[in-house]
């Protein structure tokens, strides 16, 4: 229910905003780039405004927009002169890949480091790791990305400077996978580093709490090995809050991905979004925003459901 309302708010916002934007797509089309200036005559303008349905009353535009959306039609891009949905579908896999990769990597890294810190609580190892993580968690991803780009791509030449794969090269099979991973490595590492701090802190805290619980003492009394206690009894319970945390962080993750893509000129939705803003491409902007917002909301919905399955305590009781 909550999610249904949120979906509607996003769709409505998405519909209203571009229509209130100052500026005019025709104005922009006719004056872009300096060289290819072509002016629209009044009749041409009128024709296009009618063609794209911009002269209809707002409720009618809204109804059209909704029905189109349900059929998967997000309109036609003013600038690329192509279906928005197909443009987005072409770019979406790249964004999905780095977001998913960064989520997994930051989860893995955060869990390992967080549990390490929890087991060495108050030692110098824990303290220095804690400090490092706090500082890292506060540096925004795109600033981190610039440094990594300078050091590893420009300085050492270990990674490519931009793009998602090498152009004009026909790799097949394994070579192709390697090439794509090589290009994705820096963006994914950047995003993970920027996100790992929050996960680290959460794991460190919950682990410490869990280790003080009665069932851990019971396990100890049974004479189980420390390893089994840590990784079988404690880990499962300590990881539970991570499900919610990852979903809540998804918004920040997607925002970070938009910026990081622009740092590395990675051809995902973020890069597309910036280009769309510059050419005032309403439908494309709307489409990208919609896809990103739905992705984040979907992740949250999924986490809610998953949490209910994973945590037996919430089973059976109805939470609205």
């Amino acid at each position: 229910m909550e999610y249904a309302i949120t979906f509607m708010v996003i769709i409505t916002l998405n519909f209203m905003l571009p229509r209130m934007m100052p500026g005019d797509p025709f104005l922009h089309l006719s004056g872009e780039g300096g060289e290819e200036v072509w002016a629209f005559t009044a009749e041409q303008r009128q024709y296009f405004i009618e063609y794209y349905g911009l002269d209809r009353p707002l409720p009618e535009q809204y109804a059209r927009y909704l029905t189109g959306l349900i059929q998967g039609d997000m309109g036609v891009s003013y600038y690329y002169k192509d279906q928005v949905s197909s443009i987005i579908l072409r770019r979406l896999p790249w964004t999905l890949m780095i977001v998913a990769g960064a989520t997994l990597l930051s989860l893995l890294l955060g869990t390992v480091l967080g549990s390490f810190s929890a087991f060495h609580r108050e030692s110098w190892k824990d303290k220095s790791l804690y400090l490092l993580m706090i500082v890292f968690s506060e540096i925004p991803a795109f600033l981190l990305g610039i440094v990594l780009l300078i050091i590893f791509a420009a300085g050492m030449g270990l990674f490519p400077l931009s793009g998602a794969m090498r152009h004009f090269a026909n790799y097949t099979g394994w070579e192709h996978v390697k090439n794509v991973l090589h290009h994705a490595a820096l963006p994914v590492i950047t995003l993970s580093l920027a996100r790992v701090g929050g996960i680290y802190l959460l794991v460190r805290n919950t682990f410490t709490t869990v280790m003080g619980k009665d069932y851990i003492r019971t396990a100890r009394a049974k004479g189980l090995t420390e390893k089994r206690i840590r990784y079988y009894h404690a880990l499962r319970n300590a990881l539970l809050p991570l499900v919610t945390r990852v979903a809540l962080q998804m918004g920040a993750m997607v925002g970070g991905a938009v910026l990081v893509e622009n740092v590395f000129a990675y051809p995902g939705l973020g890069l597309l979004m910036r280009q769309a803003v510059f050419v005032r491409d309403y439908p494309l902007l709307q489409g990208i925003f919609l896809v990103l917002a739905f992705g984040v909301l979907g992740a949250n919905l999924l986490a809610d459901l998953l949490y209910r399955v994973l945590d037996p305590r919430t089973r059976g009781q109805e939470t609205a």
Partner: protein
Amino acid sequence: MYQSQVMNPRLLLRVPGELYKKGIAFWKSLSIFGKFGLTVILAMIILAVGAPFFTWLPHNVSSGPALVPPGGDHLMGTDEMGVDLWSQICYGARVSLLVGLGTALLAGLGGGIIGIWAGYRGGWIERVIMRLIDIMIVLPDLPIMVILAAFFGSSLRNIIIVLALFSWSHPARIIRAQVLSLKEQGYIKMAKSYGAGDLYIIFKHFLPELFPILAVSMIRLSGMAIVTEAALSFLGLGDPTSKSWGLIINHALNFSGIYFTPFWKWWLMYPWAFLTLLITSLALFGRDLERIADPRVVKRN
């Protein structure tokens, strides 16, 4: 008697003396990171306010050859137009701090009022506000802000408004929670039974209790606002007339092939370093304040 107190010069000195003592006590309660953060923040504020005193070259017009490395008259070198980078950074601090302060004040006060209202009044208003906050929390802010910045037009004032529009939910939520628990306190109920009005209770009893939490939240907000302004500028959605650190970075990155030249060593690195330093300091200071203002955190550890 009252008059003699005012006339006594020693008593007049007591007020700044008390403030000084309180300041020292506050400084001592900070951890080493909080001290570091506060020092950097104060230094940045001094830099921003006194920008004309610290710079000797114009920040907006060319004052030498383009892309000069740091040294000599150009403390941090020049950019592609020959504009002195040190001056740009000093004046850019004004933009960043203005955005941070403006957003924090706007969102902090707005969110605080909404939070007090929701918590104190309750009823359907509270339910609507809470639902709204739930929605705001899951929305991905950056894509929305990109769209809004494009839609409002990217003047500095608009950027601050957009930022405030999307960050009031955090202070509102914590203030509401605090008001809810305060409302049940005995002394509030007693004040009410003595006939205290709503405004009296809010101003006399709530605000002093809420202020520390709100202050922490506002520090967080200002850090977030500075980051987001830099991010928007970096995407090319900043105010072109007021050159912030993010915009310098944007210009540097738009210089094609900057990574193949040595220019990034000053043109990119200095604004980057200042931005990172300010953001990290705000975060460290905020974290420390949080620890001091919220006794629950201490108990948990």
